[in-house]
C-alpha cells in the first residue's frame, strides 16, 4: 500500500509559489529523502503532509487518506519533527511529554519509556528553556514518536545532536524504526544512505526524483549550485 501519493501538488504563499508539480508515490516502510537549498519548499512539503497546510492544487493522499478532506483520519498517525521542537519552554520535559500524551490518548507509562529511550529521564524535571539544544532535540524526538506514529516527517532530525545522541535516537527515527519516513536533509552522504527515494527541490519544483540507488552525490550537490 502507498503511504504517500502526490499528484501535481502545489502550494503558494500569496503570490509566491512554494511548491509546484510534485508527484510521487512512496510505499509503506520506505524512506523519502528531500534535498534542496534553503527556501526550496522542503519544510512546506512536510507541513502539507502533516496536514498543517492545505494543498492549493493537485491531489495528496497520506496513509491512504485524501488531504485535506480526510485530514482528521491521519492526525495522530503522523509524527512531525520540524525546526521548532513543539515544546513549551516553561514546562519541563516530562510535563511537555505528558501534555502531548494526553492529547494523543497515550498512557503516562509511555512518557517514561520514551524519556528513557532518549536518555533524558535524569533531566526530565527541568524546564525546556534550561536544556541545551541537543537535549531539547532529544525531547522533541521523544515527542514525535510518543504515540508510535506510522509516518515520520523529519526536518534535519539530527541537527544539534552529538554522535552518541545520533546513535541513541537511531532506533526511534532511523532506518531501524521501520516506519515510513520523509526526511529533509542537507547531508548528501547520510541522506542517500537511508533513502529509498530521493526528491530534489529547487524553487519549489522537483528537479530530481529517482530511486536512491540511481542517484549520485554529485547530482545532489548540483541542486545547491
Amino acid at each position, binding site marked *: 500500500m502507498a503511504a504517500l501519493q502526490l499528484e501535481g501538488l502545489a502550494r503558494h504563499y500569496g503570490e509566491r509559489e512554494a511548491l509546484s508539480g510534485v508527484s510521487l508515490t512512496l510505499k509503506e516502510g*520506505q524512506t523519502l529523502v528531500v534535498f534542496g537549498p534553503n527556501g526550496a519548499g522542503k519544510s512546506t512539503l512536510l507541513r502539507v503532509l502533516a496536514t498543517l497546510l492545505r494543498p492549493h492544487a493537485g491531489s495528496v493522499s497520506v496513509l491512504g487518506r485524501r488531504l485535506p478532506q480526510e485530514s482528521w483520519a491521519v492526525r495522530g498517525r503522523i509524527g512531525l519533527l520540524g525546526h521548532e521542537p513543539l515544546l513549551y519552554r516553561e514546562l519541563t520535559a516530562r510535563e511537555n511529554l505528558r*501534555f502531548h500524551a494526553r492529547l494523543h490518548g497515550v498512557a503516562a507509562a509511555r512518557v517514561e519509556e520514551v524519556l528513557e529511550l532518549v536518555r533524558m529521564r535524569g533531566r526530565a524535571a527541568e524546564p525546556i528553556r534550561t536544556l541545551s539544544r541537543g537535549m531539547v532535540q532529544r525531547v522533541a524526538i521523544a515527542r514525535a514518536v510518543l504515540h508510535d506514529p*506510522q509516518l515520520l516527517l523529519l526536518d534535519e532530525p539530527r541537527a544539534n545532536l552529538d554522535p552518541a545522541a545520533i546513535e541513541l535516537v537511531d532506533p526511534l527515527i532511523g532506518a531501524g524504526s521501520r*516506519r515510513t519516513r520523509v526526511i529533509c536533509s542537507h547531508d548528501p552522504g547520510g541522506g542517500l544512505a537511508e533513502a529509498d527515494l530521493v526528491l530534489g527541490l529547487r524553487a519549489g519544483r522537483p528537479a530530481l526524483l529517482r530511486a536512491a540507488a540511481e542517484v549520485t552525490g554529485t547530482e545532489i550537490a548540483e541542486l545547491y549550485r
Partner: protein
Amino acid sequence: MSTVVPDRSSVSAGERTGASDGRAPGTFAVVRALLRKELLVELRTLESVPAMSLFSVTTFVVFHFALNRNSVDGDLAAGILWVTLLLAAILGVNRLFVADAEEGGFDGFLLAPVDRSAMLLAKALALLAYLLVLELVAVPAFGLLLLGPSLGQALPVLLGVLALGDLGIAAIGTLVAALAVRTRARDLLGPLLALPLLVPIAIGGARASSPLLALTHPGAPAARWLLTLGLYDLVFGLIAYALFDFLLED
C-alpha cells in the same frame, strides 16, 4: 515527474498500531489537559494575571487623581469599575495564545486527533480564571480607593453581575485572540477588535451594577440588563464555537 521505487520494506499495512491504540481522547480529557497546561505556564511565567491586577489598581489611582474626588458612587462608580476591568482583561486576551504561537503549541495541538473546540473551551476557561483572580484584587481595591458606599451588602449580587460579564469577555476575548495571534500586528489587532465587541458588556455591566453602588437607596440590578448580558454571552459563545475551527485552519 513521478516515480515509484521497488518495495524494500518488510512492514505490512496495519502492522504499526500506535501507542494510543487508535482511540482519540475525549473532548473533556483534552480540555482538562489544555487547561492544566495553560495554568501551569501562567504560574511559571506570571505574565498575565499580575499585569492585569496591577493595571487595574493603577487605573483606580489614576481615576482618583484625575477626577479629583475621594469617592464615587452610582453610574460613575459602575462605569469606572467596568471600563477598568475591560481594559485589564485586554492585557490577558493579548497574551492568551502567545506561548502557543511562539513555541509551536498550535502545531502540536493540530497534529493530535482531537476535537478542535477543546482549545476554545480550555482557553476561555483559562481567561475566565484570570478574570476571577483579577476581580479578587480589583474589586476590594476599588472599594478601598474610590468607592463611596460600602461594598458589603452589594457584593454577592455584584459578583453575580461580574460573572455574567466575565463569560462574555472570555468568549469574545478567546475568539479575538485566536484571530489576532496569527497576524503580524497581533498586539494592535487584539485590542482594536476586542474593545468594540466588548462595549455592550461594558454598557450592560455598568447599568446592572449602578444601582448596587448607589450611595443612597441602593437597589437590585434591572432584569433587562442582566438579560442583555446573558444573551450577549450566549450569542458570542455560539459565534466563537462556530468560527474557532476555521481560525485554527491554514
